[in-house]
């Protein structure tokens, strides 16, 4: 095993290739089992459910994870922002819908900014604990605003065209919201991997102290990243609302874990300094393919979650396992040479 991994060329050892292989394997297994139902056009259709809203949140989460922090409150932020939008629009009798959208984005950004301020001002508290608290706070506010009601009746372009519309690309019906998501990805890729400010985020996540000593304004970067994360959560909530058609205070429950899982599966490290936009996209594709296939075969959400959980544990363990195997084989070799002598 260790011999094999040592012989592989460097570019093949990259995490992204492992994801590509997994994607091909998943697609091959399910399309040979369910050739009629597991098709590209049906998968594209399902990206609305499995890929877009979670994808936006995962992008924000990716930047937070690269910084070495975490934000548990993104799903609650999405719910609060969507609530603010729905209530201010008030089924057509409130402010104009465009203004409601702007208000929603501002709400998301403010939620993120609050997290950022708390994290930078109280560096002795863990971001995990801070955002766990703001999570209940944000969802609590959403509940106070909406109570147990749901609010909807959005304009048709929103809940019909954006939520369920598709455009024809190369003969395939590609959901409009997927096009929106894919259009944002290159911007994130360039920003994180090709610009100075992206580099500084990786620097701060790799070693905060050394970055600060190198003139990186780490406090400012943290504030910016948390604010952006709140904004991306609101965007996720926006697309989620467009396909559900109405808002309750409970929407997006559990999405923070999915966002974290996608970012980590894509190669981000919870200890900071690592992560990739390409990896994130591949992880989303893998998850979409897998969830869709599992739903077709078992039609049971519990089996789906269980399988995804197992997969995540396995994947996170792979790098540790190879190191341990290498150590054990070295000990075995020494013992053998001792017996021979």
């Amino acid at each position, binding site marked *: 095993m260790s011999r094999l991994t040592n012989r592989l060329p460097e570019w093949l050892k990259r995490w992204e290739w492992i994801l590509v292989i997994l994607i091909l394997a998943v697609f091959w297994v399910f399309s040979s089992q369910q050739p009629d139902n597991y098709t590209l056009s049906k998968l594209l259709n399902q990206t609305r459910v499995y890929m877009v809203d979670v994808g936006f949140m995962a992008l924000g989460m990716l930047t937070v994870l690269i910084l070495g922090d975490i934000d548990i409150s993104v799903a609650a932020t999405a719910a609060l922002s969507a609530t603010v939008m729905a209530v201010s629009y008030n089924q057509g009798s409130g402010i104009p819908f465009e203004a409601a959208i702007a208000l929603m984005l501002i709400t998301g950004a403010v939620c993120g900014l609050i997290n950022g301020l708390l994290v930078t001002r109280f560096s002795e508290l863990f971001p995990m604990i801070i955002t766990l608290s703001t999570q209940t706070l944000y969802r609590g506010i959403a509940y106070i605003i909406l109570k147990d009601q749901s609010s909807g009746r959005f304009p048709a372009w929103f809940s019909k065209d954006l939520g369920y519309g598709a455009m024809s690309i190369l003969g395939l019906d590609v959901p409009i919201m997927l096009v929106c998501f894919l259009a944002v990805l290159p911007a994130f890729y360039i920003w994180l991997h090709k610009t100075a400010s992206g*580099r500084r985020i990786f*620097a701060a996540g790799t070693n905060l102290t*050394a970055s600060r000593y190198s*003139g*990186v304004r780490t406090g400012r970067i943290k504030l910016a990243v948390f604010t952006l994360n709140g904004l991306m959560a609101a965007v996720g909530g926006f697309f989620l609302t467009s396909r559900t058609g109405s808002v309750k205070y409970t929407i997006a429950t559990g999405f923070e874990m999915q966002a974290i899982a996608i970012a980590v599966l894509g190669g981000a490290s919870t200890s900071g300094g690592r992560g990739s936009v390409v990896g994130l996209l591949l992880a989303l594709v893998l998850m979409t393919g897998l969830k869709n296939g599992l739903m077709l075969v078992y039609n049971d959400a519990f089996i789906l979650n269980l399988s995804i959980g197992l997969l995540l544990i396995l994947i996170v363990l792979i790098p540790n396992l190879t190191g341990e195997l290498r150590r054990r084989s070295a000990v075995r070799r*020494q013992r053998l040479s001792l017996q021979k002598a």
Partner: protein
Amino acid sequence: MHQEDLILQMAGITKIFPGIRALDDVRLDLRRGEIHALIGENGAGKSTFIKVLTGIHQPDAGIIRLNGQEIVMADPLVARRHGIAAIYQHLAAYPDLSVAENIFMGNEQTQGRLPGISWKKTNQEAEKLLQALGSDIDPASEMGSLSVAQQQIVEIAKALSQNAQVLIMDEPTAALSLRESEELYNIVRNLKQQGTSIILISHRFEDIFSLADRVTVLRDGRYIGTWDIDETDSDMLVKHMVGRSIDQFYPTKTTLAGEPLLKVEGLSRTGFFEDVSFTLHAGEILGLTGLVGAGRTEVVEVLSGVTRPDKGKITVLGEQRHITSPHEAMKQGLSLLPEDRQKQGLLLPWTIQSNITLPRLDLHKRHRLLSPQSEGRAAEEYIRMLAIKARSGGDTAESLSGGNQQKVVISKLLTCGTRIIIMDEPTKGVDVGSKAAIYQIMVDLAGEGYGILMVSSEMPEVLGICDRALVMREGRIAAVFTRGEMTPEALLKAAMPLEKARKGRAEHA
């Protein structure tokens, strides 16, 4: 030499990391009850060798014999069971627990068959161990409240509590003042008399010549030789370590001080230092020395914007400045080489290139994007200019030896383009060859009109390259010496605290 004299024999130890032969046929014989110094430049393989002995690394070849019996050190627990204990440079203590708890961590004391920890026994045993070492540390005191020297003693007590036969000490005096070093020497000599065998790793010749019985030199992962301490002297050891003799260790500095660059007046930070005033001139190397804890690092941290002063004026190039962050400091013309290059100076997993360009990424932009070509050119330039030993700018910082890591940090400073350079212990933990290179770089920079403020605990280097030296004592500047006035005795006398005040401070630290 008889076979039964040896407690530990290591022979033919070879360890290969991807691309590097870290150890190549290295051997070491440790006699019972001897202090054996293991020396070599950074990157010579000392740490790897110790990690093989303590089971952290598995060797690719070689044998380890303890009391004549061959042993496979499968993991650190096996080493511990065989009585091999190591005390590392960076202490791994639990600062919030008591001294006694630290000593018996993982080896909790119980009374009879009761399952619970017996605190009475824990404290008693701890006290016994500490007393055997001739130390009066209270076993109930909190670990974090002790000085580094005291913590080191606790670590030794911990090793003894596990019946260590072989004790490995990695740079034990690196963070200690002269007096504290003396105390530690006494303890180590004591241990030796009680029959403990000690492997001592140190860069300080004082340590080696006042403690060791024999010395083994490693160079580039290879075994160079073992000598009785009486047969050697420091010149000879340096020659073996570097593989060449160093005639001119401190370069001659010819430039004279020019216009003032940095003027500090009445600078204070409550609890750390008070009323510090000095002026740094262009072309000058100004030493800032004193004992550990005298407030030197705190002064430069304020100057470079890491912390804020409570009082005082800082004037940079004729203009009064408020420095609120390292970013501001750089913008206003000061850059800092921090004391701890691994934690504060470098992003260890990053490449040399990315480390060097980090402070001034704005210089490497093309069409608002980072230009890898421009970054690569900058890295190549500094690798050539400072003679950094690396295959390319794409090597990671952690793959370099200490001296070369330090050169990367110096490159970072130079990219900042500031005329004022502050260096906190620039040669700490750096091998002899790189030390000479760093001094040369500093003298060259001064020649080009940079002003350098150097914090240093090593008296020879203050005497060797500084134009003037400030000596701090208990948070104040106790004396200023010009080059002509500097003698080791004068510097030491100025640095030594008054006896009564010393105790209070040590407790405070």
